[in-house]
Every structure is written in C-alpha cells, then in structure tokens.
C-alpha cells in the first residue's frame, strides 16, 4: 500500500495555520466568513438560551416538588453522627493534646468550648420553651409563631461543672478536662425508642489502636477504669428534644448536649477514648463511618 504521508515542515504548518486564521483570498476567518460566524454564534446563543431555560425549568419544577419542611429521603441518615467539642483534628482524626503547665496549649481548646456554648446562653435560648416532660415532644401542628414548631430550651447551665460558668477553664488545667458530646440532628428521628439515649465513654481497648490503654489494662489495672462525670446526670439526652422537625419548622432548635469530664486521665500517655451513644436506633458499628453513633478521639495530657 502506498503511503499517503504528507510531511510538512514547521514553517509550512505555521503558514497553513496563518491561512486558516485569516485567508485573504476567500475572506475566511478560521474557516468561515464573518457573516457565517455571526450566524453560527447566533444559533449557539439561541441553543444555549433554550438549554439554560430547560435546565432552569427542570430545577424550578424540582423545587416545586420537594417538601420545604423535610427531605423526601434520609437514605444516608439512618443513625446520627456524633461530634466532640473541642474539635481538633490531626492526621488521623480527633487529637486533643495539651500540657497542663502550658496554658497556651489548652487556651485554644477552652475558647472553642466557650464559643460553642454561646449558642446555649439563656439569651440565645430565649425563643425556646422550657420543657419538663421526659417523653418525645411530638408536635403535629404548628404552635409556634410564624407557622413554626416549638423547640425546647437547652441552656449551658445544665452542663453544671462543664458549663464554663463555675469553672471557666473547663477543668483543663487540673488535668480533668470537659468535653462536649453533640448528636447530629436528623429530622423526625426518635432516638432510644422511649428511653433517653445516653453517652458512655470508655477506653478503646484494642491492641493495635491503643497500646497505652492496653498496657494499663494488662497490668491488671481494672481498678482504674475511665472515671467520667456526665452532665446532665447520667449523660442522657432528654427525649423532649426529639424529634427534630427541621430548620423551617424549628428555626431556633438547638441540639441537646452532654458534657463529659474525665477524672482519672493518666498523664503523658496517649489514650484513645470512645464515647458512644447508647440507645435504640443508634448504631455505632459502621466500619466505614467512624463518627456514626460514636466519637473516638485521642487524648494526651502532659505535665
């Protein structure tokens, strides 16, 4: 088969390109006459206007079909995520390291807590009502102002020793730090099946994950399991904060919190602690999601 090889030199290619951009003989600019360019541009303009219109129409009708109060599906939100404050993330998740004698190392942590709790001052909670019942706060009607539903108050006082009021340093300098556990909001989620879910913090006892805790455990130091004070009492999330009806229904809703105060942290050892939320409907065994139903963190207090 004969070759059809058309070898061109560089200058020929440049020349060809130049002719392509503007060919003076045929008056073609990039292969088209100017008027042709105008036509084609107009066509594409119209085409894209129509396509944008179609897209806008689709999105508009989508917005018309979605429920403004709650999403159609909660496929990914079967069980709530759990977060920790203060939240300092290192390379491998939450890592809270500080030195009791160096206040620079823990001031940031304390500020985080304090800032976080500003949403729970009595002033900030004013729109919400006081709830006393220990059952789910089910609202089928819009009883609040402006077609909203009511939300229960959660005031930082309820965290007692960890409220930052009695101890503005949240126990950090003493080596007995407070942490705040928050459960993620999920609309119409009823945790605990009638029993208030509670927080339970333990060492992560796993050979690889937590050598220090393992060593403690091996030494037969069962006398020193993790000592924790939970606030409110028993570390429960009161059922009257549930269910959540969504941002539009409950604009002033704030998540209930549980504060944990670790009392017997061994110094200078990196400890791995997990705080689980115990309650029906809350799972913490999803291998892919380390924050579902539990929060794990590393804690190291130096002196």
């Amino acid at each position, binding site marked *: 088969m004969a070759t*059809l090889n058309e070898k061109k030199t560089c200058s020929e290619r440049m020349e060809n390109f130049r002719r392509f951009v503007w060919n003076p003989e045929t008056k073609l600019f990039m292969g088209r006459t100017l008027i042709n360019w105008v036509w084609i541009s107009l066509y594409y303009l119209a*085409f894209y206007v129509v396509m944008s219109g179609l897209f806008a129409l689709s999105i508009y009708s989508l917005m018309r079909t979605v429920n403004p109060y709650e999403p159609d599906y909660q496929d990914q939100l079967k069980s709530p995520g759990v977060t920790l404050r203060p939240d300092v993330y290192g390379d491998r998740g939450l890592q809270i390291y500080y030195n009791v004698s160096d206040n620079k190392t823990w001031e940031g942590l304390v500020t985080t807590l304090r800032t976080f709790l500003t949403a729970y001052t009595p002033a900030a909670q004013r729109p919400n009502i006081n709830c006393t019942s220990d059952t789910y706060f089910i609202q089928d009607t819009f009883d609040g102002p402006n077609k909203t539903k009511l939300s229960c108050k959660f005031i930082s006082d309820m965290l007692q020793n960890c409220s930052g009021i009695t101890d503005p340093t949240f126990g950090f300098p003493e080596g007995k730090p407070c942490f705040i556990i928050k459960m*993620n909001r999920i609309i119409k989620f009823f945790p605990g099946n009638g029993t208030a879910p509670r927080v339970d913090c333990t060492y992560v006892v796993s050979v690889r994950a937590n050598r220090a805790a393992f060593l403690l455990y091996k030494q037969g130091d069962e006398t020193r399991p993790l000592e924790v004070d939970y606030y409110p009492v028993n570390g429960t999330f009161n059922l009257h904060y549930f269910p959540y009806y*969504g941002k539009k229904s409950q604009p002033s809703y704030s998540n209930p919190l549980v504060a944990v105060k670790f009392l017997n942290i061994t110094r200078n050892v990196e400890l791995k602690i997990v705080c689980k939320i115990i309650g029906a409907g809350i799972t913490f065994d999803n291998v892919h999601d380390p924050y579902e139903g539990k929060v794990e963190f590393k804690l190291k207090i130096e002196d």
Partner: protein
Amino acid sequence: IQDDHKLSTSELEEKYGTSISKGLSSARAAEILARDGPNSLTPPKATPEIVKFLKQMVGGFSILLWIGAVFSWISFGIQLAQGAESPFDNLYLGVVLALVVILTGIFAYYQEAKSTNIMASFSKMIPQQALVIRDAEKKELPADQLVVGDIVEIKGGDRIPADIRLIFTQGCKVDNSSLTGESEPQSRSCDFTHDNPLETRNIAFYSTTCVEGTATGIVINTGDRTIIGRIASLASGVGNEKTPIAIEIEHFVYLVAGVAVSIGVLFFIISVSMRYKILDSIIFLIGIIVANVPEGLLATVTVSLSLTAKRMAKKNCLVKNLEAVETLGSTSIICSDKTGTLTQNRMTVAHLWFDNQIYSADTSEDQTTQPFDQSSPSWTALSKIVTLCNRAEFRPGQENLPIMKRVVVGDASETALLKFAEVILGDVMNIRARNKKVAEIPFNSTNKFQLSIHETDDPNDKRFLLVMKGAPERILERCSTIMINGKEEPLDSEKAEAFQTAYMELGGMGERVLGFCHLYLPENEFPDTYQFDTDSMNFPTSNLCFVGLLSMIDPPRSTVPDAVSKCRSAGIKVIMVTGDHPITAKAIAKSVGIISATSETVEDIAKRLNIPVEQVNRREATAAVVNGMELKDMSLQQLDDILCNHSEIVFARTSPQQKLIIVEGCQRQGAVVAVTGDGVNDSPALKKADIGIAMGIAGSDAAKNAADMVLLDDNFASIVTGVEEGRLIFDNLKKTIAYTLTKNIAELCPFLIYIIASIPMPIGTITILFIDLGTDIIPSVALAYEKAESDIMNRRPRNKRKDRLVNEQLAVYSYLQIGIMQSVGAFVTYFTVYAEQGFLPSTLLGVRVDWENNAINDFEDSYGQEWTKYQRMYLQWTGYTAFFVSITIQQVADLIIRKTRRNSIFQQGLFRNKVIWVGIFSQIGIALILTYGLGHVTALNFTPLRFQYWFVAVPFAILIWVYDEVRKLFIRRYPGSWWDKNMYY
C-alpha cells in the same frame, strides 16, 4: 566463495552426488535434509515482541493517561508525606489509569499479533511448490523440502525455490529485484559469463522470480546459505506506511488530545488562580484528561475494522492489512485487469454463423442448454464437425460435475468447442467413438487448419467424412460449395460476400472466429480399407463444403456489468488495463459497461463522420482505447490529459511496466487507486497503488505478497462489495466516534462546574472509566454493524484531503450540542438526588471546601440536618451513580440517533440492526450490575441508587432524539443550505 558456476555439468553431478536425469534418491535427499535443515530462511529478527508491546503502551492516548497516572502517584506521594487521612484514593486512581493503558495496550498488541498471524497463515496457506526430479520422477514438493543437489524445473511466474545453477534454459528471464532492486528482467542461460557468482548468467537466486521461459538447474544452496539468506538487509521489512484511516485516526487523536490538554491546562490555570491548592489543581487536571480521552475508542475502531475484514472475507475479499478495508472505500479509480477479473478466463463459444445467419450462444458461467435454433440440417453438419474435429478431452471421472466446471485436456478454443458440443449434443466422447477417427492432421501455424477423417456412425453409409476447421479465410479458400439449409450450394461471390460480412462482424466483436467445413469422400475412390497418409495427404483438401463459422470469446463474468455500473454510480472510474488486443479489449469493455453503450472513442467518431481521426474534436469523445504502443510514445502530460478528459478508458496491449505508469498517472490526479493484478510483473503496480488487489486463483505468490487484499474468487464484483464495505465502515466509524465523543462533554462538565461553582464532585474519575470502558464499549462496536444509509454507493468517493473522519461538524455537534444536552440531563439528575436527600441546589453552591473537610462531621443540609463526612461521601457516591446512570440512559438515545447521519431513524428501521439492541441491553445491564451488584463495594464508588432516579434523564434522552430527528429532517429538506453545511457530519 563458490565456484559452482564455473563447473561443468558432469563436475556438478559429481560434486553433489546427483544425476541430471534422475535427480537424487529420496533417501539421499532425506539425509541431506537432515544435515542441512529445511530450505527456508530463518525468519528475520523481527522487532522484539516486548518492543512491539511497549510501543502499544505509548501510542495514541496512552501518553495522556500515563501523565494522568504519574500525576496521581505524585499527588499520592505528596499527600502521604503530608500524612493526610486518605491518600490512597490517588494511588488507586493511578493504578487504575495505568491498568487501563496496559489493558488497552495488550488488546491492541493482541489484535496486531492476530492480524500478523492471519498474514502468516495466509502465506502458509499457499506454500511454495517446486517441481523436482527425484528417483527419476518429476514430483511437486514444498519448496522447503529442497536439498542441495536436487534437480528442479522452473517456468515463467515461479519464484526460484533455492540458489540454482542452471543446466538447461529456454528463453529464461529472471527478475532479480528482490536482490538488486532493479526490476529489469535479466536473461539466464547455462553459460558461465562472469567470475563473480552474482554476475554470472548461469545462476538463479533464491526468492527472485522467473519472468518468462523455462529452465532446469541443480540446487547449490538452500535456506540461510543462499545468497539472499546471507544478505542481512533482507530483515528490514517494509517501512511503516500510513493508510488513509491511520491518518484519520491520528488526526482524531491529535484533535481530542489537543482539546483535552488545552481544557486541562486552562482549568489548571483557572483553579490555581482561584486559590485552589496546586495538589487539588493537579487532581482536577487528571480528571479532565480522563474525562476527555475516549479510552475505549481505539480498541473499538480496531474491532470494527476487523469485523468488516471478516465480513469481507466472507464475500471473498481477504484483507491482509486491516486498514486497507477503509482504503478500498475511498477508492476513486480502479485499474482492473481483464482476463479472469472481468472475464471468466475461459474461451466460450459466443456466436455461430450458418445458413447466412448469425446466432448468439449463451455465454454465462452455468449454461446447461443453448437456446438458438438447432433445427437446421446445416447445424447438424456443423455440430458433427465441431464434435469430431477436436482433440480436446474431458479428464475422466468428472461425470457428476456440471459441464462448465469439468477439467479438459486441450487448448482453450478446443476446450470451448468441446464444452459447447457437450452441452448441446450430450456425450461427445461416445459420438466420437461411434465415428472412429482414421486419420488426423493437428493444427499448426503454417497450415492454420486442423483436419481429421472419420468413419460415419451410419452403418449404411460407408463413406469417410473429412472434417476441417481453421482460420476462416483459409478454410474458405479450400471450399467450392457452401451449405445452406442442409443443401450444398455453389460458393459464388454473393455468398462469399455474406461470409466476409459475417466474419468481419464477429471479428469486430473481438471474438476469435473459426471456420468449419467438411467433405464426404466418395465411396468408390476411398473404400473402407483405404490407407490415409497424413504426410503425403492422399486425400482431397480442397473443393470442400463450407458449413459455418463459430466465434469464441472469453466472456465477461455475468456479475461484472452490474458491478461496473455500481462503480459508476459510486463515482469510481473503472479503467481496464490489459495486454489483450484493442478490439477484444474494447468489445469486453463495451459488454461490461466500462465503455457505455452511448459513448464513442475518437476513432468511432471519425468513422461515423467519415473524417480523418486527426480532425475529430477530442473533447467530444468520452471513451478512449489506448494502445500500449501509443502509450510508449506519450509524455506524462499527454497521459494526464487522457486520464483527465476521458471518463471511460481502456488500455490495451500494455506491458506491466506501463501499468505502473498508468497507476502513477492516476495518482497524480489525486485519486485513490486500486489496482488488480495477478502476475509477478504486476507487483510494482500493486505496491504503488493505494490498494493492491491480487487474484487468489490466478495470482502468483509475488502478486499476493505485494497486494493488500486478495480476491479469493478473482471476481471484479467482489471489489465492488469491498468498496461498499469500505465506505460503510468509514461512515460507521464516524458514527462510533460521534457516539463516543458526545459523552466526553457530560464527563467533562462536572469537573468544570465543580471547579467553578465549588459544588460536591458530581462524578468520579473511576466512574468515568466505567463508562468509557464499560457501558460504552459494546454499543460503539454495535454501530459497526449498522446498515448503510441508502445513498452509500450513489455518492462520490471521499476526498482524502477534505472529507475527514472526524470533521469540525462532527466534533462541534457532538461536543457542543448533544454533549451539552447530556450534561444538562445529568446535572438535573444530580441536583434531584441531592435535593431529595436534603441538599437543595442553592445550598450546594460554593460548599466544596467544607463538604470535603474531614474535620466537619456535623455538616448542615438545607433542612438543618447534620451529616458526618462519611454520610456526605456516601451521598456524593450516590450522586456519581446518578450521574453515571443518566449518562448511560442518554447514551442509549445517543446510540439510536447515531444510527443515521441523514436519514430518519424510522427510515433506517429501529430494529434492523439487532446488534444495536444487544448494545443497548448490555449498556443498561452493565449499569444495573454496577449499581446494584457492586453497589456495596466502596472502592468503586457506586451505590444502590433509588430506582426512580433512572428516569430523571429520560426526558432529556427523548429531547436528544427529537432534536436529532429535526436536524436530519432539515438536512434532507434543505440540502446545501446553511443548516446542511453546519449540521451534517
């Protein structure tokens, strides 16, 4: 250095322990064979397989993908060093990209190896044979069994099977071009003419070809010890030549790679200037490259081509070079041989003249009866002469074969007469047996007649019958009477005139005419004991009775006229190039339509107007019959003139060298030239042609080696089938590419929107690969099975400089129109999924940084719910799946619209191409498996999607179909309009 050429015959016999008359004994030959090994060249060290393999790894788009892979690994390295949480994603991506390149490379390598194998098996299919004298017998042996000392006989057309010292020659000429590069035939004799064995005339070398004559010689070297075996340079194969389709694909690769790189770099710059991290920008770059490169396309093209090649092989076109498939489709001139290609390659009786009347005979390939009027007693007489005055015989044992297929021992005209008689009269051999032959004078060139004397089969008639046939004018000279309606009438000048007219007429049709006469010898002069002596001719050979004329021609194949007219409507010029006589050539050209009924040559016009040839306006003649002698004296300018100005050309009495000149002339006109050939001497023309077509039956090895394609049935009509297939594959490749390119935009837009609007990533790089190499592969191959749109053989051949495979319209329509529609459809699905799970479109804009932040595990959606990182990732994968599904659904519509480029789908038939439906079902099936079967394998980023999301993009799929129907409607309705120019690809 050997001195065999200096030795005498007897010295040679002694040296090699052989005998010129008896050859070697089989036992001795086997011994030598065991010692020396077979007579074949050790295959030249081809490019090492590993190099070929590696070449596949860097060709085409591979480089781009390698770059992507390397970038992935670099970013993995950086992330690992920074101790990021999940750096392995990039490692995997890099590995996947590398795997893609390697797998497509392996595929391409496998395909190439397979086509090399086809060629190898092809050359094995026709092993070279050599005629050897062994054990005092002539034997046909495979050439690789030859050993030193063998006596071989060669004749014109053969390849010399080993280095041979010639001991007997007759007009032997060899073509040493494989050795010296000069194709001028050199004569060979037994004489020692030069000290240098390479120069002396009495040695013929292995792998050269004997052009004409015959020779006998002793094998003096075999295998690697032959001269050519020692020349290492043989190893260098044919250079890498680019076929039209290879050029088109290269053009396409450049185009797509250009788009990929420029968009990639553009968005790299944009993302860097938007303060994205360099690392992130690199990852975007990888995504953009992957989205832009149609990873599966090159493999698809190869598969489509080989499918077509297979289809053509079924129709008797064996394609040696895959890409030749398409070249045939762009052919604009076919230079065809006459004998065997256009004609049946056998003489057949075409006309008869007796009783002052011309009768036509059936010349088709499978005749079983002859329709002309056989009631006249003259015919009875004529048939008797035809039967008896004939030395040809059927080989025994073929009674069950159709007459036309039986093998005959005898020359071409006698064979024709024998078969003709057999068809009409039945058992000729029996008739001959009943009319016993008593004397015979065979045909010779001085007499120009053949004569035999028979007893008659009538027991009451004791006369001898003398029958004679020969050149009509010579026969007529010997006749004094002529038979009209069974009666002998005196041959007066009026009747002689009638004979002349008939003879001229038949001769003018390019037919070979024979005259027949007979004489019943008077019983009294020639009693049944009479001894006939053919040397003294003791019997009358004049004053015979003229009976009639028969004319024979090698008739055109019955499929050829149709094929030629197809070529004509397909804008392909068919030029006949033959060594035959101009009159015969012209007659055949007329009968097959190469010269159409209405067109005239210059000579015809001159004859009609009764003016000298010089006065005819050459422009008026559409046809031309050019004689080889004229061609010899022509300048290139004149030849170009003829090729340009005449649409119907026949070259007669041409030599093979002139064939080359004609091919070059056609190529100067910018034509893509297909050349058919069978002889050794055709190989230069076959090589020179854009596509060389060798004859499978009549073709010599050399021609087959030089050709790109072999016609297994030697039939011209097969070429036309090939052209049709070639055009079809070009069209279908266009469709495949258009189909494949379209979704690239739907894969690319997500990255661009992601970078600009900072939304969660709509589609993952791995997901893109699943589209490109998963769902899309079978449908794009299925387009290769698409039937032609009606006009395929009614349009002009493709202009190889202007009509590109991937032209601007195709790219623009796919990228900027259908691609955009697909993107819109996919994005609507994406936004629907996110909105129904809690993230309304307004929330999504600008959310990227927080969305991807591992440290945020209470990310708030539009409804106030809070999401962990994993929950968001899972939603993102659901988004990928939704995007993937929408692209798949819309690709179904894309596949359907790509079935045609001009006709409505409803004209083409939605269900005619079943393979398309296989494609559609496979596409949806693979998507279902990926989503629901592998939806739980997190590494693949697929999730079991809610079923209703499969239908979100359906309106857009319908829109694509409707829009394309409208496009095609306007193209059909307003040909040549602005719309046609811009929207037809």
